[in-house]
């Protein structure tokens, strides 16, 4: 069977719920950040697939993907700055140990 839109939607849905599973089970902030990256990638894959198979005459899905990648990079940088700061104050990056947000 020739791979098409449905196959790519299957991959992106799978990737999204793998990320959601990781987000539900993990308690470490860095692994939760990895799950968010997987979820964002599934969204990007959706945009590109719809762009390619449904509206090949336009490039708007491609631009949305570019902007999502830029925002994801900014988000990851800020998240890691917060994680490092939390580690400095609590010596742990487990979400259960981060009970007090103000010290």
């Amino acid at each position: 069977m020739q791979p098409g839109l449905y196959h790519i939607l299957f991959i992106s849905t799978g990737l999204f719920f793998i990320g959601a599973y990781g987000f539900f089970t993990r308690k470490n902030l860095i692994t939760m950040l990895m799950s968010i990256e997987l979820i964002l990638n599934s969204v990007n894959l959706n945009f590109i697939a719809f762009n390619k198979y449904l509206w090949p005459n336009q490039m708007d899905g491609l631009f949305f993907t570019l902007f999502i990648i830029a925002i994801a990079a900014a988000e990851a940088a800020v998240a890691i700055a917060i994680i490092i700061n939390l580690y400095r104050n609590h010596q742990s990056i487990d979400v259960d140990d981060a009970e007090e947000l103000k010290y």
Partner: protein
Amino acid sequence: MMNGSDILFYGLAALTLGCGVLAVTTRQLFRAAIFLLFSLIGVAGIYLWMQYEFIAAVQVVVYVGGIVVLIIFSIFLTHQAGEKLAPQKIKRQIAAFLAAFCGFALVMLQVYQHTFTESSETAVAPTVKAIGTQMLDTKNGGYALPFEVISILLLAAMIGCIVIAIQKTPKGISQEQ
């Protein structure tokens, strides 16, 4: 009969999903980062398979070269090498698996029942020239304004990171301490 392109697609799909599953289930943090890296490379391969070369390049440069390296650095800054994560509660794992699987089944059911109608207009190739022209165009559906907004956002994120991660020394304590 499967040709080379199909085999390549299924291989990339297996790489992406398999490494994704391992990235969220392994108990060794560094291995999780490496599996995430291969999953993102698989996604870049799928972009390349769909002939979106520029997006594939951006994916490799930003995700694989930027975000994953950042994650690995923060793992080294916050964890002992070879340290395993605490085992998760089996009850929570089952509940999370059921939630994820039911969500997946629901979405796939909706997707397969929906018929997508393709546009009949002639396709434009997503060349770098076409992308650059539309990115900096102010008319005809150009993306000049979002481009500028993203620039401000990246600047704000950069300054924000410096402000958050800066080492605060309490007053009266010398810097050497």
